[in-house]
């Protein structure tokens, strides 16, 4: 099966992710894929959850923190500015406290908590996580293409949903028990009703957000996860390990793309020993890949003569990738 056939035979898979170790060409392949889908007339949003995103570089356009920026017809790209999102979010919380209690300023103790909370390393990941939920819940596009961060982060990102979900379940339960005590006290005092618990409402909202995101990422019908690898020993080993881990999180793996394959035509010419060795090495590992992954490999992408930046290069790569 080819990459093209996968997209044509599964039009319902609308959430597309490319994963792999850093520097193997995830961004390049997601951009190429987004470009091709847009050219097929689909409305596509390509977005990056990487704090060091490189979509701006590949499209040669500054899109960081600017929302969904149009690239060509039907194609939008977005880089999430986590810092700004955290700042806006903090201000929203401060404003809410001021509005709820009619304070002139947020009490110092509370304010310093808000400020220090944002210094936590998990804050950025959570903010991005929440931003992704925002994007997906709106549902404005036919395809959502995640330019995922390197594997470790991707796994963290996926496991976070599970951890959050369990945590929220526990405290929601505690909160509900607290509600029961309220009702007991109210009944004993012959009070008619108890106040609606706003915190419980918030907890349910948070739970809904977390579930929406993890449901999509692990939805076998609608999500497609592609692994990117190159024909090198360490990468093959790491990819195998990562694939096992991903399977544990129920992430549906749709196939593999082998990137940076040196063209065989080179052999015909007179080439230096260095290059010849590299080609031979690649050939050995390509053999390994064929025997272990076989028809799960959807495309072998040639090493181009220059790096992939700008639309003309992306178009050229798309032609090779989806031929």
């Amino acid at each position, binding site marked *: 099966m080819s990459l093209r056939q996968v997209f044509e035979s599964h039009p319902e898979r609308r959430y597309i992710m490319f994963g792999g170790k850093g520097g193997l060409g995830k961004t390049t392949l997601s951009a190429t894929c987004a470009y091709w889908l847009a050219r097929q007339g689909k409305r596509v949003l390509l977005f990056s959850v990487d704090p060091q995103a490189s979509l701006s570089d590949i499209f040669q356009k500054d899109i960081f923190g600017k929302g969904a920026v149009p690239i060509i017809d039907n194609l939008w790209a977005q880089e999430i500015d986590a810092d700004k999102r955290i700042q806006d979010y903090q201000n929203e919380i401060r404003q809410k*406290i001021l509005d709820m209690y009619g304070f002139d300023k947020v009490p110092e103790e509370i304010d310093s908590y*808000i400020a220090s909370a944002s210094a936590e390393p998990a804050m950025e990941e*959570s*903010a991005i996580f929440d931003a992704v939920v925002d994007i997906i819940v709106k549902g404005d596009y036919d395809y959502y293409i995640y330019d995922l961060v390197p594997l470790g982060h991707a796994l963290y990102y996926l496991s976070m949903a599970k951890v959050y979900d369990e945590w929220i379940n526990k405290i929601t339960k*505690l909160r509900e028990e*607290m509600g029961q005590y309220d009702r*007991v*006290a109210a009944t004993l005092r012959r009070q008619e009703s108890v106040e609606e618990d706003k915190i419980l409402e*918030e907890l349910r909202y948070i739970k809904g957000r977390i579930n929406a995101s993890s449901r999509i990422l692990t939805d076998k019908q609608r999500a497609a996860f592609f692994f990117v690898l190159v024909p090198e020993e360490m990468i093959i080993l790491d990819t195998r390990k990562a694939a096992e881990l991903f399977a544990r999180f129920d992430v549906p793996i749709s196939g593999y793309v082998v990137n940076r394959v040196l063209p065989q035509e080179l052999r015909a010419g007179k080439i230096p020993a260095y290059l010849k060795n590299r080609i031979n090495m690649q050939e050995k590992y390509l053999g390994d890949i064929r025997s272990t992954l076989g028809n799960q490999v959807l495309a072998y992408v040639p090493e181009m003569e220059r790096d992939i930046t700008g639309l003309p290069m992306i178009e050229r790569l798309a032609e090779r990738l989806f031929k």
Partner: protein
Amino acid sequence: MAEQDKPKKSGIFQVFKDIVYGMSSHEMTRHAVRSRASMEHLFILITMGDLLGVPILPPYYSLRLLPYITPQISTWKRRMLRERDITDTLG
């Protein structure tokens, strides 16, 4: 007590009702309210542990809860950080 805040109805029946309440369910009510308060503090601890230097949870979503908990924060910190002595276990 909360009962005293309400305007009382006059009449012998109301007095009788209050006496019965005081004798029977007042203690239970107090117990329920106290349990509820302890749980409230436990709840704040697991959501806002960072305030005491006990990081328990990624703070992004816990910030959403902060506005509702703001009034209780100072009593909660006092309760969590005060020294314990023998009278605590007796009480």
